[in-house]
């Protein structure tokens, strides 16, 4: 009878058990559960951000929010960009921080000028964290709104301008 290679079989068995145990240990630890929770946190952050912009956008005159999103954007002086820690659109900054006091955010405006996409910084509260979420809301400006709010958009009377309000939100 051939008795050789007995030890090789044992070695194979041991290796198999070792591999199975390793896979078991990894899968049983937190690896699977974490992404689910993180997803829920991201959803909450995005929801708060988009609700904030939506609520400011639809706010009637007779509420604590005095200027709606379109009026805030219309009042912006287009020539200067924000640089930390000075922000150059205080009316929007105050409304946003009243609505989401525990969340940090940066706001940019994106619009086309002479056929090119321009992105300008408007409100800066710091460097976004790794798990930051971006929410967007569009507003349409006419010269009438811009004139009433005293902004620097320089629109013709028959011109309309679509501006994308981009807000990066994150938690610390």
């Amino acid at each position, binding site marked *: 009878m051939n008795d050789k290679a007995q030890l090789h079989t044992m070695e194979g*068995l041991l290796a*198999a058990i070792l591999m*199975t145990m390793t896979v*078991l240990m990894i*899968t049983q630890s937190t690896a*699977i*559960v974490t*992404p*689910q*929770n993180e*997803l*829920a946190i991201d*959803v*909450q952050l995005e*929801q*708060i951000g988009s*609700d*904030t912009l*939506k*609520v400011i956008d*639809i*706010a*009637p*005159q*007779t*509420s*604590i*929010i*005095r*200027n709606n999103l379109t009026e805030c954007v219309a009042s912006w002086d287009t020539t200067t960009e924000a640089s930390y820690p000075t922000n150059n659109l*205080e*009316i*929007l*900054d*105050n*409304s946003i921080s*009243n*609505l*989401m006091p525990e969340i940090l955010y940066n706001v940019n405006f994106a619009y086309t000028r002479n056929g090119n996409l321009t992105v300008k910084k408007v409100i800066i509260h710091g460097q976004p964290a790794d798990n930051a979420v971006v929410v967007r809301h569009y507003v349409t400006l006419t010269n009438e709104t811009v004139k009433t709010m005293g902004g620097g958009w320089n629109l013709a009377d028959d011109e309309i301008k679509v501006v994308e309000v981009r807000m990066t939100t994150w938690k610390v």
Partner: protein
Amino acid sequence: MVDDRGQIAIDFLLGISLFLIALIFTVQFIPGMSMAGSAREGSLDYTAYRTATILVEDTGWWGNNTSSGTDWESHPTDNIERIGLAVDDDPTSRLTNSPNILSKNKTTQLMLLNENDLTETLGLYNQVDNTHFSYGYNISITKNNAPLVLNNTPVLLGETVPYDRETSKITRIVLVETGTIADFSGEELPMKAANQEEYPLIDITGPLNEEVTLYISNFNITGGDPGFKKLRLDGAPLSEVSDYLAYKISPNGTIEIIGTTGKIDNDDVVAFVIYQGILTGSQTYQLEFQFKDIEFGPTSLPVPEYQDVLTTYYEPAYLTVEVWN
């Protein structure tokens, strides 16, 4: 010699049984692996998200054999198919132009629904083997960390959140229709008497059993120290602590309580909130404001009536839905 060919080899037996054990183990283990994360916690997350979204962005729907519409709050005895709180101006269309604006009537009606209808309509249960397992839930609308009070009832549904269990929570920012507001412009308010241009008047007809909110804007500043001093009701002074609250909203959006030393700019809005219980008599009250260094309209103007300029008042608030097993 015995012929021992044809017997099963012991090596083969060992090998095949090892293989089978491994196979059975794998088949049992793999499906359980992917279930671990999503099945339990995940479904809670989805329930919280779904419930909050339906409440905030949908108007709800009711229907019987003959008619249907989004105004389920006026048909509490009919079949309510969906519960939603969003304001709607056309109850026959299924859409709303105003998500995130919550109706006062719908919210009040929501508080009156019975537990069973609520869990059923909002889908706050899990179905396991054809048996309903209701989730524990807590739905609330809060403002300044306290439940919002509508018609003397705090908007708070469900049980207290347990501390020893894992829950899933989602918060939405909404505008809630909390009542009415009257918005006045400075120059349309008549002064009390000639040479008393700092004392404008407003009439209010009672009885009013809720908070009364007034806005005054467009101030004509005439001196160096413009401010608000006092509020009188039919000649008697009101208390700033127990009877009313006065605050100003600056053009840049900051909100500040104004006392007797607060300064007012010409583009500020000054808000007065007269608390519930002050204007409960069936009579016409006259509010007399006392400002300093601000000029109002001539005595010849009619005294404006609060009820004539009423519009709906919306306040920002947080709607929170929390569910657990």
